[in-house]
C-alpha cells in the first residue's frame, strides 16, 4: 500500500523536478538543433511511457493488495502482441530523429574550414591550415621543444600553418568548421557543451567532427575523457568572433615557417 503511494509521489516528483528544476540543457550555440530535437522527442516519448507504466503500477499495487485469491491467467497472447507492437512503434519514433541527426553528423559540409585541436596531458593547442587551406603532415617523431606539434618540416603545406600554442582559440561565427582532432599522448575529448557535437582525441589516429558556431561568445572546453591525474584541469576556451575580429586575431598569430626559422636562429646563437 505504502509502496504504491511512495512510487506515485516519486513519479509525480520526477515530472515536477523535470519541469521546474533550474538544471537543463545549456543553451545551444551551434547548428546542432537537430540533436536537441532528438533529445526533446526522447523526453516526450520516454516521459509518456514513464508516466503510463508507473501509473499502472501504482494502480495495481494499491488495488490488488492482499486479498483472498489471485486471478489465474498464465498468459494472454493477444495483449502481449499488442504491447510488442506498440513498443516497436515507440522505438521507431525515437530512432527516426536520432538517425536523422546522425546522418547530418557524419556528412561534413564541403565548405567547412579545417581547424586542428591538439591534446596532451593536460592542455590544448590548435593549428590552422594557413592560406593554402591544407594542414601540413605531422608525425610523432618530429615532436620536440622547437616543434611541439610535430609538423613535418619538409612538407611545403605545413609552412604556412598557423600554430596556436595556447589553450584559447578563436573561430568565426556562422561558418561550418571541421574540427580535426589529434592527441600526442592519451585519449582526450573535445567537449564544449554549448556546441553539442564532440569527439574523442585518439593518439595514433586523426578524428574529427563538424559544427557551425551560431552565437558570438566565449565557451569553455572541458576534456571529457579521463586522461590522467590532471584530467579535471584540462580546460580551454573557444572564442566565437565575427569574421573581422577573427581575421585580425588570426593574422597576428605566427606560422610554422617563421617559427622554425626562429628555432634555427636560436640553435645558431646557442651553438
Amino acid at each position, binding site marked *: 500500500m505504502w*509502496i504504491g503511494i511512495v512510487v506515485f509521489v516519486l513519479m509525480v516528483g520526477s515530472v515536477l523536478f523535470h519541469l521546474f528544476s533550474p538544471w*537543463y540543457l545549456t543553451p545551444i550555440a551551434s547548428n546542432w538543433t537537430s540533436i536537441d530535437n532528438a533529445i526533446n522527442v526522447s523526453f516526450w516519448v520516454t516521459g509518456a511511457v514513464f508516466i503510463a507504466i508507473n501509473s*499502472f*503500477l501504482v494502480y495495481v499495487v494499491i488495488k490488488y493488495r492482499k486479498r483472498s485469491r489471485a486471478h489465474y491467467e498464465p498468459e494472454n497472447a493477444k495483449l502481449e502482441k499488442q504491447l510488442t507492437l506498440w513498443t516497436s512503434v515507440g522505438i521507431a519514433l525515437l530512432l527516426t530523429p536520432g538517425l536523422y541527426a546522425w546522418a547530418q553528423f557524419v556528412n561534413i559540409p564541403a565548405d567547412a574550414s579545417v581547424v586542428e585541436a591538439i591534446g596532451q596531458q593536460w592542455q590544448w593547442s590548435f593549428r590552422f591550415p594557413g592560406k593554402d587551406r591544407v594542414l601540413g603532415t605531422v608525425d610523432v617523431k618530429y615532436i620536440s621543444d622547437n616543434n611541439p606539434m610535430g609538423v613535418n618540416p619538409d612538407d611545403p603545406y605545413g609552412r604556412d600553418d598557423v600554430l596556436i600554442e595556447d589553450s584559447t582559440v578563436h573561430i568565426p561565427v556562422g561558418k561550418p568548421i571541421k574540427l580535426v582532432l589529434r592527441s600526442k599522448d592519451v585519449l582526450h575529448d573535445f567537449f564544449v557543451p554549448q556546441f553539442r*557535437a564532440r*569527439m574523442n582525441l*585518439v593518439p595514433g589516429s586523426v578524428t574529427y567532427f563538424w559544427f557551425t558556431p551560431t552565437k558570438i561568445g566565449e565557451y569553455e572546453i572541458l576534456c571529457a575523457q579521463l586522461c590522467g591525474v590532471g584530467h579535471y584541469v584540462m580546460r580551454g576556451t573557444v572564442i566565437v568572433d565575427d569574421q573581422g575580429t577573427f581575421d585580425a586575431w588570426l593574422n597576428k598569430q605566427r606560422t610554422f615557417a617563421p617559427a622554425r626559422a626562429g628555432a634555427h636562429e636560436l640553435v645558431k646563437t646557442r651553438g
Partner: protein
Amino acid sequence: MAYATLADDLREFHHPKTWVGKYVWSQDHKVIAVQYMATAIGTGLIALVLSDLFRLQIGFPGSLSFMTPERYYQFITMHGMIMVIYLLTALFLGGFGNYLIPLMLGARDMVFPFVNMMSYWFFLLAVLVLVASFFVPGGPTGAGWTLYPPQAILPGAPGRDLGIILMLASLAIFIIAFTMGGLNYVVTVLQARTRGMTLMRMPLSIWGIFVATILALLAFPALFVAAVMMMLDRILGTSFFMPALVSMGQQLGYNGGSPILFQHLFWFFGHPEVYIVALPAFGIVSDLLSVHARKNIFGYRMMVWAIVIIGGLSFIVWAHHMYVSGMNPYFGFFFATSTLIIAVPTAIKVYNWVLTLWKGSIHFTVPMLFAIGFIFTFINGGLTGLFLGNVSVDVPLSGTYFVVAHFHMVMGVSPILVVFGALYHWYPKITGKMWNETLGKLHFWLTFVGTYLIYFPMHYLGFLGMPRRYYEYGQSALVPHSAHMLNAFITVVALAVGVSQLIFFYNMIWSYFYGPKAESNPWRAASLEWQTPETPPAHGNWGPKLPTVYRWAYDYSVPGAPDDFIPQNVPADGLSRHHQT
C-alpha cells in the same frame, strides 16, 4: 531413466567429516554459494566506503585532507571495478547461481563439485590480488574502471607502476575462476535436472542465471585477452594498444598499436556484462513477484524468450559505448538501431512484471517491496538508456553525469534492489532462521528512496554538461552555484544510504544467531528449493530420493486447488493450467 537411479544413490556422495572439509574446502554448492556471497559482499563493502569518500570530495571539495586527485581517481576506479565485477557478477552467478541451480532443478550438487570449489578459491585469490594493490607503492590503478590505454599504463595515471599490473592480473584470475564456475552452471542446467524438470518448467531465476552464464563464458575471454595484451604492453613494451606517442615530453618506444582496439575488446565484454548482471536480476525478480503476489508469472514463455533474445542481442550492441570514441562514425547507424531494438524484449519484461502483479494478491513482504522498487528504478534506468543508445542523442550526454546516473540506476541500484530482495527471500532457506521484518522494511525504505534521490537529479547535471570523473570543477561558468548545492545534497543522501546498510548487516548477522527458526517454506512457494526435506538443506539436498517434477514453478492460485500454491513435485491432479509445458 538411467540417469535417475545413479543420481538417487547417495553412496556415490562423499560426505565430508571434518569442520574444515564442511565449511572451508567444501565442495557443497550451498557452502560455496555462501562463501561467494560473503566474499562478494565484503568486497562490495569496500567499494561502498570508497564511494562515500569520493562523494565527499564531489559534494564538499577539499573536506578530506587525504583526498588528493590521485586518491580520487584511484577510489572511483576501484569502486567501479569492484561493484561491476567482484560484487555483482560474483554475487549473482557465484552466489545465487551456486545456491539456486541445484536446488531449483532438483540436483544433488553441481556436476563438477571439485572444479566448483576451485572456482571459489580462485575468486578469493582474485579479490586478494585486487585488495593488495591498495598496499603497493603508488597504490591501485586510477585509470577509471574501463582502464583505457594508453593512459592506464602511462605515467600520467595513478597506480601506473604496480597497481595496473595487479588489476590486470586480478581480472585474469577472476575470469579463470568464473570459467570454472560457469562451465559448471551450464552443464548442471543442461545435464542434472531431475525427472520431469523440462527446460520450459525451470523457474525464471534459473533461466536468467543460465543465459547470463553463457553470455559470460563468451564475453569474458575478450576481457581476458585485452588484459593479457595490456599487460604485455605495460611490462614487455609491446604495442597492441599503444601508438607512437610522446608522454610528458618523452618519446616512447611504442608504435602502431590501436587504443580503439582495446575499447572494442573491452565493450565486447562490457556490454554483455551489463546483461550478465541484469539477466539474473530479471529472473530472480520475476520469481519474487510471482511468489509474493500469489500469482503465476505473466507470459512465462515470452519471458523466457525475452531473456534469450536479450542475451543474443547483447553481443551486437557493444559499440554504443563508443559513439564518440573516434571509430568510424558510420557504425553509429547500426549500433543505434540494434541497441534500441533490445528495448523491445526488455520492455516486454517490464510489462509482464506489472501484469504479474495485476489481479494478484500482493503481500507487501520485504522481498516484494524490493521487487516493486526494482520495477520503478529499472523503468527509469531503462528509459534513459534510450537516450544514450540513440547515437546523436548520446553525443552531448556521453561522458557526463547523465551517463553516471543512467548506469547506476539501471545496473547499480536496480540489480542491488533485487540482490537485497533475493537475500531476504532465500535467507530462511539458507540459514534456517528468520530475519526481523521491521528492520528489513526500514532498510528497504532508506535504500529505495535514498538511491532514487541520489541518481534521479544527477541526470540533470549531465544535461548541464558536467563531465564525470572531475576531481573538482573550480570556477566554471558552466557549473552554477545551484549545481554545487545539488552535488552537496547528493553526497549527504549517499552518506545516509551508505550508513543505512548497517541495518541490513545487523539484521542478517543478529538473526543468524538469535532469529526465530524459519519454517521450511515460509513464503508458501511452489518452486523446488522450498520442498527440501530439511531446512537448511543437508549435503545432497534431497535425502534418499530425488524429487520428481510434474508441473511448472508457477502454479499459484489455481482455480479449484485447496491451497493457493501447488509445489512442483505434487503429481498432476487435473487442476493444472491451460497450456502445456
